[in-house]
């Protein structure tokens, strides 16, 4: 029996390591001088300049910088240098294969489980990570999905061999606001039943929130009197900073009436919130702007939520909110095609947001929302070296990414997809037998 179970474990281990084997080249660690590129800084305009990456940071921006000892020069003539893109919501590294449920690590059982840490379950060697990187995405939110409080999301950089090496300094508790919409085309509930269900869910939410606040008060009291807490309650512990407004809460909410209710709920409870999804945000854009609550929208490439909606509402939504003064970041909400983030931004740009604002929505805006704008989101001295170099507008599908840096590493632009191309473009042998 014992041998059997060891064998079984070995088989599992081999299967899992085979599933996630990378076989891509190692990254190159060092300092790099990016010569003669056009820098799209996002925060300080666009101009021709050199950029020195040292110890993983942007050390200098200026003309005619000289490469010191041990600095690798990267010729960026006729190239454009961008800050790495940030995806505001994914399951990257938390899901390997869609239909194989045992490769899914974002949807734990339970409704009130904010202590489930997405960062714990990120597979640094997930095959989709290099696939994502080669399109200029260098950071992403990884977030749990499921019940009312499915866990805690984290921001990661897309390079590293442990979750902690990838962690980019931001976490938020995720909440799914009670929906008064249909779950999908197969939802057969009547309008009245949907209304009843959502009212019940809101009532339950308010009841659990009373408990959260009570727990936070007890926690504060016991801390100030140096008393030990009696019970082990990790779920409640995970909520304390949120209840006090010290930690951000990501609230998934999409329908107009629900967004309005969520804004009110956030204000009543004095929370530091960001709304995610926000499909009908354009219908309440002024209220969102007035409330000063930022949003993470996407995927932009989506169908309308109502049959009566104009065909392009999902494309136009981010731009309409931005115009009203809402701080907008974008997300793909994907695990395997996070690489399409530049195209989500491109569609938002095309349908009213404009290229400049769409670029902000995948760089400096998410960095500011997540409180990491001192590290990420623009080309500025002192920030982390998350940078890519392209031969054109990265929103265009014809554009090539030529170089990519994350921290102190120059990351090879390889992935399963490029390697299969290299192997199979001119397959040898061809049709002949052996």
């Amino acid at each position: 029996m014992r041998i059997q179970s060891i064998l079984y474990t070995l088989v599992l281990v081999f299967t899992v390591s085979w599933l996630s084997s990378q076989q891509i080249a190692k990254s190159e660690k060092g300092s790099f001088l990016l010569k003669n590129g056009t820098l799209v800084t996002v925060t300080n305009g666009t101009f021709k300049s050199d950029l020195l990456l040292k110890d993983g940071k942007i050390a200098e921006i200026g003309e005619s910088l000289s490469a010191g000892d041990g600095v690798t020069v990267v010729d960026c003539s006729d190239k454009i240098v961008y800050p790495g893109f940030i995806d505001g919501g994914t399951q990257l590294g938390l899901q390997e294969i869609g239909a194989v449920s045992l490769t899914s690590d974002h949807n734990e059982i339970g409704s009130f489980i904010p202590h489930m840490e997405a960062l714990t379950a990120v597979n640094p060697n997930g095959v989709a990570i290099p696939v994502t990187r080669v399109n200029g995405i260098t950071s992403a939110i990884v977030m749990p999905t499921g019940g009312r409080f499915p866990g805690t999301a984290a921001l990661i950089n897309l390079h590293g061999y442990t979750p902690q090496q990838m962690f980019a300094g931001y976490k938020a508790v995720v909440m799914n606001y009670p929906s008064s919409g249909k779950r999908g085309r197969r939802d057969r509930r009547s309008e009245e039943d949907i209304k009843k269900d959502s009212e019940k869910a809101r009532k339950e939410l308010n009841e659990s929130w009373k408990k959260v606040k009570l727990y936070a008060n007890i926690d504060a009291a016991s801390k100030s009197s140096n008393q030990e807490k009696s019970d082990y309650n990790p779920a409640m512990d995970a909520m304390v900073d949120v209840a006090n407004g010290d930690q951000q809460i990501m609230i998934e909410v999409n329908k107009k009436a629900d967004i309005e209710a969520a804004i009110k709920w956030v204000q009543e409870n004095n929370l530091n919130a960001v709304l995610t999804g926000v499909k009908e945000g354009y219908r309440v854009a002024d209220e969102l702007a007035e409330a000063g609550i930022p949003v993470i929208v996407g995927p932009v490439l989506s169908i309308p939520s109502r049959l009566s909606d104009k065909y392009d509402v999902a494309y136009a939504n981010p731009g309409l909110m931005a115009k009203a003064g809402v701080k907008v970041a974008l997300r793909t909400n994907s695990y395997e095609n996070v690489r399409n983030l530049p195209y989500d931004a491109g569609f938002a740009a095309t349908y009213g947001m404009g290229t400049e604002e769409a670029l902000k929505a995948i760089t400096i805006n998410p960095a500011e929302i997540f409180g990491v704008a001192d590290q990420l989101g623009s080309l500025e001295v002192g920030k982390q070296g998350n940078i890519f170099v392209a031969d054109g507008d990265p929103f265009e599908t014809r554009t090539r990414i030529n170089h990519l840096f994350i921290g102190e590493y120059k990351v090879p632009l390889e992935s399963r997809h490029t390697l299969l191309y290299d192997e199979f473009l001119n397959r040898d042998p061809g049709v002949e037998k052996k």
Partner: protein
Amino acid sequence: MGMSLSAQQGDVLIKNGTVITITDGVKENTDVLIRNGKIKQIGEGLSVGDDVKVIDADGMYVMPGIIDAHSHVGIDVVNEATAPVTAEVFVGDVINPYSVPIYRALAGGVSVSHAMHGSANAIGGQCETIKHHYGEEDPTTYQMKDAPRTIKFALGENPMRVHGEGNGIQPKTRMGIEQVFRKAFAEGQEYQNAWKKYNSGGAQVAPEYNLRKQTLADILNGDIIIHCHSYRADEILMLMDVLGDYGVNKICFQHVNEGFKVAPELAAFGATASVFADWWAYKFEVYYSTAYNAAILTKNGVVTSINSDSGELIRHLYHEAGKSQKYGDLTDNEALRLITLNPAIQLGIDDKVGSLEVGKDGDVAVFNNHPLSIYAVPQYTIVDGIVRFDINEDPDDMRLDINPDESFPAFHELNAHDEHRCMEGVYEFLFHQH
């Protein structure tokens, strides 16, 4: 099936556009004249009387209406998942002219789609090539006149899961799937031989009429083009072997994510391929995929198209085609062929649509920018000379039937994956099962 009405055919002159013909280069400042639903003339300085609608396409791009070789928009049901072989059912019987997704597809420049049976059965139902005559209320007016018959086949996980795992009958493996085809074809041949015998006086009593077997016989006679849902290289080779044994060669492999591995064999057999631009990892059989699939197939001489299989993707096939430039450097014309002439060849309608040539159907898409640019927005979609989408006359609510029991059209908490319908009606609790 049976008698079908004709949709309206119209006259329109598109002036001064950049005309992308697909088969005869790109022509600047050129006019396209459509008369009675057919392209009558392509040239400079064409003029017409006041009775003909004129579109000023100055600064715009004029291309053939986009064709989607794999779609489920505009139909009420997708799968007759009751047996591994259901060759007797017709998608043409379930066209829904009130389907708003047809209008949304028009808003993406798509004039023709292949309304397909789902992938639950090894041999599914017969499909229908439809023209997007949105606004017509008779479903038969959507059926494309003289389009060849097509039928859906499916390999791999979907039929294995539905019949083997679900119902405990063959096929549960790819071995079983091969034998389902061999048995079905043998029965079709037997049936045909029995009729031949009777018709030549060799038998007193006629065989019992059987539509399923008759359809199989029609496939063996080359009267029906096979469109086969497939992913893995081994199963693709298997089906070509089986078809080779029966002398059948009219086959388009659908999805065919591992087509790139057997591109030389596909080319040698004369099979075509209709692929996703970048979908992968949503199930195990697409884990070893590459977005370079379309480019590898094209460069190996396989007639390749990019399809949607989705109510969302069908809205931006021009963007999906653009990805073949990122992943494999296809030229503009090669990329646009993936969504015009090549799918037309796969559906056997390339004598009527797929390029701008005198005598072909007046199916045209007009864009404000080059259609492969992310900044392209479809302006007009013309089907048989009738403007079915005009961005300047585009009311928000395009429903043709209104549910009187619904106070306001319901909000659907969908994600993009909910619009993939290949397995609809089978395993409703599983999404993402293309």
